[in-house]
């Protein structure tokens, strides 16, 4: 068991693996709503953090989802959720804070929220159905999610309502992830 754990960790901390992880995430941001499969054995949420973070960035983990031993490897500075550039969260709980949305002059200050959900589906089979359109989406697509509190989408739609301010959501289940940048229009329950 211990060996297996070490193997997993070796994977996600290797620069070549991080490059591949980044390219999957790049596809996810370029084509919102397309569910990407994590090529690594680790959970996508952890592999994505490993690929993106270093000592220059800030991370918040208000629900203590990360093991303490991971923090030194991520190198990120620990800050309150309201200020963090990256926030790792359990999507089944309703939002309890307002993340950084950036400013008019510097909208890149808006946070990236990684929400852990139960499962992602590219059809209507799960509880929370979303219809997506906007840049990167040629024709509106539908995805559905289990284990995501609907308040997240309502709050997110509020946070992105005055573009260019806003937040990016990355929904991760045990194997897959999907990105919802601030430009994506999300309609809840939209019939396919």
């Amino acid at each position, binding site marked *: 068991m211990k060996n297996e754990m070490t193997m997993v960790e070796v994977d996600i901390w290797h620069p*070549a693996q991080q490059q591949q992880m980044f390219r999957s995430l790049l596809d996810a941001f370029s084509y919102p709503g397309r569910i990407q499969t994590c090529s690594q054995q680790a959970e996508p949420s952890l592999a994505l953090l490993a690929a993106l973070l*270093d000592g220059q960035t800030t991370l918040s983990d208000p629900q203590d989802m990360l093991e303490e031993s991971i923090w030194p490897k991520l190198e990120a500075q620990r800050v309150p959720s309201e200020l963090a550039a990256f926030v790792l969260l359990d999507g089944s709980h309703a939002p309890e804070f307002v993340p950084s949305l950036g400013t008019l002059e510097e909208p890149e200050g808006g946070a990236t929220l990684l929400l852990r959900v139960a499962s992602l589906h590219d059809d209507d089979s799960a509880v929370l159905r979303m219809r997506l359109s*906007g840049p990167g989406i*040629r024709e509106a697509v539908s995805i559905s999610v289990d284990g995501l509190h609907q308040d997240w989408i309502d709050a997110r739609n509020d946070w992105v309502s005055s573009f260019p301010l806003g937040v*990016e959501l990355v929904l991760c289940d045990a194997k897959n992830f999907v990105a919802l*940048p601030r*430009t994506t229009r999300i309609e809840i329950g939209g019939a396919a």
Partner: protein
Amino acid sequence: MNAHYELPLEDAGYSFGFLDEYAKKEVRRCILKAIAIPGYQTPYASREMPMGRGFGTGGLQLTLSLIGADDTLKVIDQGSDDSVNAVNLRQFVQLTCPGVAVTEKTQEATLIQSRHRIPEKMLTEQQILVLQVPYPDALVVVEPSEARRKVMHGEADYSRLLVKLYEDVVRFDEITISHRYPTRLNGHYVIDPSPIPRWDVPRLHQSPALVLLGAGREKKIYAVPPYTVAEPLVFDDIAFRVEDFRDANGQRIACRCCGSTVSFLDELIDDAGNVTHQCSDSSYCEEEQETISARKQA
């Protein structure tokens, strides 16, 4: 680049892609924000590269942060794979990224770094186009202060830019911008699409491929995401026009090499003063010629 030059490997050596992992991670985080905010010039640190700023270091840093051992790279300069800038950058990537394949064929490439052109062949979703940018801000002609330009961009206030275009119309009956034509993305930010000709601007609109723009000297990264509305800035009653390649008789001029009448042409003037035209995209031109000679043989 000196053909015999070798990277000094005796010390710590260089990591894959020359840049250290911290530099790559910073560029990668900026790329993601740039895609999420189409057209916004995301600031980044822009590391020192072993070539002068202004020689494509912005594009190169994007390429080196994106590239992996399974990528196939194409580098072009003004449409040509063989000009000095393209050859230098391609050699540098080959030197620092072992395992990366290079190609001159547009359809074979997964990553295309370009200076001043978009390849003639339609790009696909499997490709990423990286453009080198000398001047990233379209507003710089009307507002010298960057702080004020950032506010104007945030508010999508482009009235002064429109006044500039209007003055052109009044004085010359036409908008006189030949390249770097200001283009509005997703109804908000106006970008300088790098010095591509007007011909290439409509191809940013609803492009299947991601387009990333990197300015090394000005330290900015911005993006045209796939399937995004990209409209050249115009007036309702004055339509946007691309370059006109018709001769005095109204006939479309053909490339002197491949005979194509649908490509962007370079004008060449020889010592005797004769004017001829040739495709600017050398890889497209060669392929057209091969198709023609294959047809002749058949």
